[in-house]
Every structure is written in C-alpha cells, then in structure tokens.
C-alpha cells in the first residue's frame, strides 16, 4: 500500500464542532489512519470504517467509524483528495468507495437531466410556435378539408351581413347583372353557389368571402376601363374563394393566436403580440395572392376571356399606388414583381378571345344617373 496521505476534515468527540483539518492514509494492514494537522502523537486508527457519499450534494466522501470515546467522521471534500484515497485504498475498501462515487455521479447526472428537462419545458411553447409557422400550410389544409361547403356558405352569409352593416350593398340592378354575367362564365362548374354584390364605396377594391359571396366596390367598377379589366379582377377574387384562401387564413390565424396566447398569456392586452400575429397573417395572404393570380388567369383562359385586361388593370393600380405602404405591410404583394410574372404568363397564352357582350362603363354610368 502507498503512503500518500489524503487531506480532509476530521470530526469527533473532543474536537471542534466545525472539524479540524487532518490527513488520512491507508496502512498496510488495510485500516485507515488519521492524523490531525499540527499534532504528532494524536493519531486515530479505524479498522473497518464505513464509507459513503455525504455532505452538500453528496459530493464528499464520508468515512465513519466508532472510536473508543464516540463516533468519528473523516470527510474528504476535494475531488483530487478523493482520487488519492481511492487509488491507495485496500481491496476490501474499493467496493465501498466505488459505491460512494456512484452515488455522487448519479446525483450529478439526475441534476443535469432535470436541468435539461426544465429548459425543454420552458422552450416548449416557443418550439410549438416554430413548428406551427413551419407547418402552417399543412395545418390549414388539414383544417379546411374538414369544413363542408354548406358551412362555408353560411360563413359567407355572415361576412355579407357584417358588410351590410358597414356599407350600402346593392343587391340587384344592371351593374350587378353585368357582373354576374361575367362572373358566371368564370365560375362554371363550381361547387359553390355564387352571389354577386356591389358595395357603394369609392375605394378600388373587391373581395370574395368564403362560400361564393363576391362584393365589388363601385369605385373599382368606375376605375375599370373595360369589361375585360373587370373580368380580370373578378377572376382573381373568385380564385381566392375557390382556393379557400380566406378559410385557410382564418385557420392559420386561429392556430397562431391560440399558441401565442399559451406563450404570452392574455393576448388581447398585448400590443406586441397582436402586431406579431398580424404580420404573419399578412405573409399568408401574400403567398395566396400569387396563387390567386395564376388560378384567375387559368379561369380567364378557359372562359375564353382576353387575359390582357387583368394586366392593364394592375398597371392602373400600380400607377395609383405610388404612395403605397411598404410591400411587407401591405396585404397585396408589390404590384411590380407580380405584374412581371403575370405578363410572362399571359404572353404564353394564345387563342381566340370571345369579346364580352356587356359594356360595363355604360352600365355604371346609367346606374349613377338612376340614383
């Protein structure tokens, strides 16, 4: 056996309560000898000491034995001293020392596992949001598939009723007839029953609610130079309805809001959360606009309506939107990039176009005079 001592603290009868520094060593006979620092004669001997892990975090080695005058404990705290102790220990003690080291290691491992678990739990809602944003399209597809056409139509009625409260809606008249004449050509064979309305508002806008409710602002009709231009806009809005973009947007926003409420808490009170969810909603519709352009163009071509009207109307919009908000904050993608790809697509389309029978401008004019 080696003579290398290992340092620790000795506690026992007659010693200070806080212990005294001492050095221990294994004797050739396999017993432990402990000498208190600064004393030469005071040496203790333990023949069969018990060994276990103890102290704060069980990070110390405790060697305890029953002396003549009471219980003694020799505590080895430092990692390096423990190593010396294990290395020089007799074979009989090694088993106990390994068991004590095992207890310390297990505690450490369990603590790390707990810490990692805690961090994971804290990060889980954020992870959920990340996953949702990454897979929101798949989620929206899944959710939208579970909504029947009847429900969609009922939703459209709701939107229409809401719009009626805010603006004057024209249900019938020559303009509405003209719009349905164009629109029905574009929606031939659809599962939805389309209804056409004109809103008395000066803004150049139109929207398609779920379930085939299409509302066109009178401002847009006035801005449209020809029936083909109007047909272009209608095709775009119909495409939104057919591709169920509004529904998808609603599903995404609903999911995102639920998750955001989980993370931030009460979402209604937080301006930051509201702005954050809204920005992402806009991103959904930007992607959707491109998709609607392509689908609208396809519908125009199959209805044999000249698709150049779509382009010329967008050009008009671009000219008017000189002072538009930055593209990321607008619900519509920057018209420039959209126009570019659309022009390429239209140039590829060849065919004979059937002229539209109705002259939208004279109808609108007549409508105005009636009022």
């Amino acid at each position: 056996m080696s003579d290398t001592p290992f340092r620790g603290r000795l506690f026992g009868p007659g010693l200070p309560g806080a212990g005294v520094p001492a050095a221990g060593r294994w004797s050739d006979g396999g017993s432990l000898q402990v000498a208190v620092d600064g004393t030469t004669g005071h040496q203790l001997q333990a023949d069969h000491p018990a060994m276990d892990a103890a102290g704060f975090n069980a990070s110390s080695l405790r060697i305890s034995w029953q002396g003549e005058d009471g219980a003694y404990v020799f505590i080895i705290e430092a990692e390096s001293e423990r190593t010396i102790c294990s290395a020089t220990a007799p074979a009989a003690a090694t088993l106990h020392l390994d068991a004590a080291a095992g207890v310390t290691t297990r505690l450490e491992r369990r603590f790390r596992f707990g810490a990692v678990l805690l961090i994971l739990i804290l990060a889980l809602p954020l992870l959920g949001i990340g996953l949702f944003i990454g897979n929101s399209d798949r989620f929206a597809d899944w959710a939208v598939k579970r909504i029947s056409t009847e429900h969609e139509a009922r939703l459209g009625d709701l939107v229409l009723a809401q719009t009626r409260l805010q603006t004057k809606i024209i249900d019938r008249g020559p303009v509405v007839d003209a719009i349905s004449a164009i629109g029905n050509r574009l929606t031939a064979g659809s599962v939805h029953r389309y209804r056409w309305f004109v809103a008395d508002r000066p803004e150049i806008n139109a929207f398609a609610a779920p379930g085939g409710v299409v509302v066109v602002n009178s401002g847009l009709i006035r801005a449209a130079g020809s029936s083909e231009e109007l047909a272009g806009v209608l095709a775009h809005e119909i495409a939104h309805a057919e591709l169920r973009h509004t529904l998808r947007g609603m599903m995404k926003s609903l999911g995102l809001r639920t998750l955001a409420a989980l993370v931030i808490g009460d979402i209604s009170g937080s301006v930051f959360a509201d702005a954050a969810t809204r920005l992402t909603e806009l991103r959904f519709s930007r992607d959707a606009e491109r998709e609607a352009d392509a689908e609208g163009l396809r519908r125009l071509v199959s209805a044999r309506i000249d698709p150049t009207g779509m382009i010329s109307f967008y050009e008009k919009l671009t000219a008017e939107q000189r002072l538009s908000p930055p593209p990321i904050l607008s619900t519509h993608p920057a018209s420039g990039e959209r126009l570019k790809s659309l022009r390429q697509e239209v140039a590829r389309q060849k065919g004979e176009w059937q002229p539209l029978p109705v002259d939208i401008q004279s109808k609108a004019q007549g409508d105005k005079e009636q009022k």
Partner: protein
Amino acid sequence: MAMDVVDYEIFGSEMQYVEVELDPGEAAVGEAGGMMYMQDGIQMDTVFGDGSQQQGGFMGKLMGAGKRLLTGESLFTTVFHNESNGKRRVAFAAPYPGKIIPVHLTDIGGTLICQKDSFLCAAKGVSLGIAFQKKLGVGLFGGEGFIMQKLDGDGMAFIHAGGTLKELVLAPGESLRVDTGCVVAFQPSVDFDIQFVGKIKSAVFGGEGFFYATLTGPGKVWLQSLPLSRLANRIILSAPAAGGRSVGQGSLLGAGVLGGILGSDE
C-alpha cells in the same frame, strides 16, 4: 490567496449593523447598497463581479457578475479600500430585522454554503460563487431553491438573515429536522435533505407543509427563526389596506370576531 484580516464590531440588537475596521491598505467587499457609513480615507470602488479576481480578464469578470445575478444580488460589488495611514472604519447595515453573524471561513474549512441573498460583507479576497442544489427534491421542497451561495476563502465573512440566528454544532450522524426556509448556512460536510412529515393529517393541518428540511452532521449549521417572506406575509395580512384590523395584542378571539365587536379603542 492572501486575505485581509479585519476587526469588526456588531451594533444593535434586532436591526443590526456591522462596523469593520480596516488597517492601512486593507479592503472589504460589500453588497452594493449595503454601506451605512465610512470614515475619511476610505476609497469606494465599484467593481463588476465579486472583486476576488481582479486579474481574471473580461470573461472571468462577466462570469462572476452573471453568477451574482443568479443568486439574486446586484451585478456589482463595492470594494472599500483604506488608503489612509491609520485605521479606518466602514459600516454595513442589514436590510431587514434579523441578526448579522460573523463567520471565520478558516475555522470551517474555507467554504460556507448559504442562502442566496444572505451575504452582507466580507474581507476582500473572499470569493462569492453559486452552489447549485443538485438534489432535485431538496431544490423543489427544501425551501432554499436550487441556487445557493458559496463563500470561499480564508477571511472573515458576514451573513445576515431574519429573526434570531442560531449557530448549532451537529455531531457526526446527529440529525436535526428544520422547518423549510429556516436554513441559513451550513458547512459543506453537512448533509442537507428533505423528509416527508410522515402523516397526511400533519401535512395538511400541521401548518409545517409537506416536508421538513433535515440537516445531518457533522458540522456547523446556522438557522434563522423568521424568514423574511414569513414576516412580510404577516405584515401584509395585518395591513389595514389589505383587510387587516388595527388591533393591539390579543388572542385569536380578541383579535377576531369578538374583538371587532367588543373592541372599544377604535
């Protein structure tokens, strides 16, 4: 590491402060905001971290400061340096009713594990670190949380806690059951664990909660009689603004329903 030896005197009984005497060239570190007064000739210097490793480099300082933030203390510590030729005094005051206890770190082997936020001041050179409570059960139910403070060095350190502080010596194997939250500090040789109170009835109606903290010797432990949170809880409960009544001393009946009806001093 050469530590500065400081002489001290503790004043007051329930709301104490400690006056530390610094020899020329000596220094003490205090918790930021803990200084009460200082004599001429003492230079105050605020350092990032705990001031024990001035040559540690920027990252070392940053780590030290981060640790202090974890234990609920300020990012900075203040070093009080005696630049004069004579002995000078600086005083540090306890922030709430309780006792200040001096601990000579050499006597207990150089390391003291204590409640976070309990450090008041120390001789310069004592390092303030964190000691994670790695027993998950103790961290959750032991009343001291997962983060404790570790004072390392061989100088004098002063810690502070609420109520009356009691220093106890535990013999090898001797065990003490303590109400959770009352453990202030202990030597690292002491086993800190928790124990279920034993009976559901006691756990629910006993008022001591579900667990005791158990301290097993050998070593020294320091206990506080009144954790600050308990005191704060009682103060808020009896504050008139929170629905408490402004009554004098009395039994439960006196202060309660009967006292409200019969109390004539209002």
